[in-house]
């Protein structure tokens, strides 16, 4: 029988290698998925440019961060990028409003088929992706500074006397707190403010909303602004955590879409829940449980192999498998989003 400390150690092991990373990545996905689902609900199309727009904001953040760092301005143990973030958000708002004005608006006015607008978003994806690579190149950039950990594994072990340590990275801490605040704000906005309610009405039944006197241009503008805020923050948080590389942002598109569909397309809470479903599935299914089982099982049953369900290379494939399964079995998603 495993001793009490063994059990605690096993739990801490999972917390450190599965729970915390999944929580952090899930929050980043959730914010991005929230942006996707808002565009889908209000503007009625799947925005394939989402990943690269996140990259765009992150690039702006990185450039301003470098500028600040060169001028000697930092934020102590917090990453300097946080200071740059507001400017990046403004830049992103301008960018998405411009793309809407010059590209998407035309198709809206024409009442084009959704697939046409999706293809247009593919064009925007190309342009934005090219822009991002043109500015920063294809390589990996680390722009997080300040303290790396809030609590290091060593400190934790010293505090608790356990064999396993639970480290909390600054980026993880930031991600989770900012995500909670932001999501709270978005829900407050959607439920309690006049504009938020107008957005929801417009998303629900466009014609009826217009008849009730809701200004469609304002709704569209506010939606894009909200999307820009979510996109920028999600992008920067992801970049602080994992570093910036243009291709990885583009690849986030699929887990985000998976999160949106799993949660129920068009449903904000679905997007958030979906984000965590995806991130936790990836973490749980690709973790090597060897050490965990060694803690819990008597010596006789302890495993030799890594005890991994799927190799880490399949991390991406997992969100797609979940996506495909959901599309087949329950296409409306967990929170019964828009019907197919």
């Amino acid at each position, binding site marked *: 029988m495993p001793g009490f400390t063994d059990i605690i150690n096993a739990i801490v092991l999972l917390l450190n290698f599965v729970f915390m990373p999944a929580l952090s990545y899930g929050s980043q996905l959730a914010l991005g998925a929230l942006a996707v689902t808002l565009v889908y609900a209000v503007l009625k199309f799947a925005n394939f440019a989402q990943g690269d727009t996140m990259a765009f904001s992150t690039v702006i953040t990185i450039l301003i961060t470098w500028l600040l760092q060169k001028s000697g301005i930092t934020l102590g143990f917090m990453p300097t990028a946080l200071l740059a973030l507001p400017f990046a958000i403004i830049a992103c708002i301008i960018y998405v409003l411009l793309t809407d004005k010059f590209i998407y608006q035309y198709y809206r006015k024409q009442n084009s088929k959704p697939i046409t607008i999706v293809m247009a978003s*593919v064009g925007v*994806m190309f342009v934005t992706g090219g822009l991002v690579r043109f500015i920063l190149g294809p390589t990996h950039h680390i722009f997080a500074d300040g303290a790396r950990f809030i609590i290091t594994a060593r400190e934790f072990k010293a505090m608790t006397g356990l064999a396993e340590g639970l480290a909390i990275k600054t980026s993880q801490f930031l991600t989770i707190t900012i995500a909670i605040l932001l999501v709270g704000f978005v829900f407050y906005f959607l439920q309690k403010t006049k504009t938020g309610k107008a957005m929801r009405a417009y998303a629900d039944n466009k014609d009826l909303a217009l008849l009730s006197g809701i200004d469609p241009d304002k709704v569209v503008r506010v939606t894009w602004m909200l999307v820009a805020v979510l996109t920028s923050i999600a992008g920067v948080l992801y970049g602080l955590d994992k570093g910036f590389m243009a291709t990885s942002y583009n690849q986030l598109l699929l887990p985000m879409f*998976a999160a949106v569909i799993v949660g129920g397309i068009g449903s904000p809470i679905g997007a958030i829940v979906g984000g965590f479903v995806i991130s936790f599935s990836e973490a749980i299914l690709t973790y090597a449980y060897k050490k965990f089982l060694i803690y819990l099982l008597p010596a006789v049953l302890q495993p030799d192999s890594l005890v991994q369900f799927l190799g880490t290379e399949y991390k991406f494939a997992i969100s797609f498998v979940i996506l495909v399964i959901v599309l087949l079995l329950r296409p409306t998603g967990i929170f019964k989003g828009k019907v197919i």
Partner: protein
Amino acid sequence: MSQYNKRVIVTFSIMFFLLLMVGLGQSWSLSLSILNLCLISAIMTLGVNIQWGYAGLFNVGIMGFTALGGLSAVLISKESISKAVTAGGMRMLVALSIFLLTIVLSIYIYKKFKNKWLVIATILAGYFITRYFYIEAAQSIEAINPAFSGYLGGLDLPVLLSWIVGGLLAAGAAWLIGKISLGLRTDYLAIATLGISEIIIAIIKNEDWLSRGVKNVTAIPRPVPYEIDLQQAVWVKEILAKLYAGSLHLLPVSEQATALKAHISDAAIVLVKLCYSGLFVAVLLLIIILAGLALDSPWGRMVRAIRDNEIAASAMGKNVKQRHLQIFVIGSAIAGVSGAMLVTYNGQFTPGSYIPLRYTFLIWVMVIVGGSGNNLGSVVGGFLIWFLWIEAEPVGFWLADLSTSFLDQGNFIRQHLLENAQYIRLIFMGAVLLVVMRFSPDGILPETNKKL
């Protein structure tokens, strides 16, 4: 001559002219390379266009089918590695059979008994049994000479056969995928097909025992002669000696032999590429002819009716789902064939290069710009966009060079611009797509049947 026919002639002449320019200005080898890849792109585009133009299916998972085609080239034409087969072949077969059995059984149990727990139990049992056989098999296969093989090898058959097998393999996969996902709305279908193609590519990349994964398979057998053999062929030497007699005469005798040799090696490269071009054109023509025949028949009329109005077509007895599935399978099969052709041409299978998002959307640009629903449009789109994509890199570089020529070599801005100039082509391609979609959504060669 009708407006449309005039357009066709003009566009094809422009394409021919562009290739001619590259041949004269840069090199014939380059021009033929571009031509060959254009031909392959045109075939890929045709596959996608048939799905989109005739059934309105937005298939973003093209790369998966292309990869399956490439996989067949490996599995058909490479020699089999008997050591690996004896080491783990049987067990792998057992593992795969159990895997398939689990899936079939779970579906059957779900349909017959509707008991969720039974299905989950079956899946879990199947998973663990499969895993038991699979892990041992994979490890033993990959242990055989991992640096040079580490996989099961192929069937040692002619590589051209793989072009057909690739099509069949892709068709089979498309049938399965189509059965599952064709009921979905267009943009859901896009995401589902993208997801599935990512899964296929992930499997190919990671299952080393199958095709060496990201270690790549090289030296894939050819259907055309090797340059080295051509260089030593007597008839090649004689023809070139005659062709270049004039210019060789002008050189001092001591240099004539080396000059001739240079001509021969260039010619060998060009000849090989021409052989490929011949093969590719043959395949392209075959597909276009078959597609044309099908469209100009009651089958084509039925497909057009379904596209016009699915509900009415169904009321008039046409099985819309079956038709969509058929078209999905045909289009994907064509993509599979092009995948096999690509890997044959490159002589190697590099799973890491199948980046779904990038190349899939490039093909969609080809479809849209060329003219969706028009087979000739696909060819035009395939050519033009691939040409632009390839030439945009050196042109972008040249532009960056020109615009910063006043800055000195080590200048940071200049360095940066030169390094990243290649990404301008992404911006450019996106802009092309946006402009065409906005101002000429029917593409360069619009579909002839659509106008009222």
